[in-house]
């Protein structure tokens, strides 16, 4: 470390911030990509079925595909509106 480094601020360098953000987004996008092609359509269909009974927004159904060894787990999270 040089003498002048003592006077520099210790806030995180922007390059490490860039790396962190990239690792998060790239991991997420890869997981999405590696899922089967029918996932977006399945998502739409599930949403349509729910809407036969209750009105929900587009983000009411969250789908998450996880891989454990050689099996895949499809996690579905459906948020219903509060009664009112």
């Amino acid at each position: 470390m040089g003498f002048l480094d003592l006077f520099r601020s210790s806030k995180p360098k922007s390059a490490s911030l860039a790396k962190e953000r990239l690792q998060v987004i790239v991991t997420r996008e890869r997981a999405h990509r590696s899922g089967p092609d029918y996932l977006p359509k399945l998502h739409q269909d599930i949403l349509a079925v729910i809407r036969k009974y209750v009105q929900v927004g587009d983000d009411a159904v969250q789908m998450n595909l996880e891989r454990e060894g050689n099996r895949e787990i499809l996690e579905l999270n459906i948020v219903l509106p509060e009664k009112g």
Partner: protein
Amino acid sequence: MARVVVITSGKGGVGKTTTSAALATGLALQGHKTAVIDFDVGLRNLDLIMGCERRVVYDFVNVINGDANLRQALIKDKRADNLFILPASQTRDKDALTTEGVEKVLTELAEEFEYIVCDSPAGIERGALMAAYFADEAIVVTNPEVSSVRDSDRMLGILASKTRKAEQGEGAIPARLLLTRYSPTRVDKGEMLSVEDVQEILSIDLLGVIPESQAVLNASNSGVPVVHEDGSEAGQAYLDAVARFLGEDRPHRFLVNEKKGFFGRLFGG
């Protein structure tokens, strides 16, 4: 058997055309008969970078449509023997690049050429998909910058599934990273992703690192591929990358900032 290589990136403005021109010229200078094709239908630019814009008569789409034959459309480079350019069309729409048409042109080129370099347009639409579809391998051009790295990762996903080889069950085509506009000084200061950072995120092999250099703009201003500027760092780094592409084992250069001034030496690490 010709080797078909696609120069791709996803993001625009990172140096695909500069790299296509440099690689194709470098291969030709090494004695390999090489064709370089501009796939950017509607926005042709390879001709300008190669300095042959005033000699374009027929283009890629003319050949696909049968308005001209390959011999009429190929432009012989003035500086490098063994090098031919197939320019993109400027007026037609992107649908002109049909799979059958592109395959026909590549098959015909493969009879005569050792290397076919496909300069991909930016984005992930038809032109980019067609440039990659028949490729045997890919060079992914990336800047050490968040949007470029993310787009490169996206493109790697496409290369893994949307090429003919992938569709035939041969898996992903080999893809290597070419990191361009690299500034070791800024990496030292923690202001720029390092080559190790980018490699760690993309997890692909490294073909080369091209330092940020005035020579690249000078080269495009004058329409002379940057490998001809062999006194420049960028020109040398591209020649190294060409040698590695041909299987030579060369150490990576220009990765550290060697031009420290007096005060830098006094106070720096």
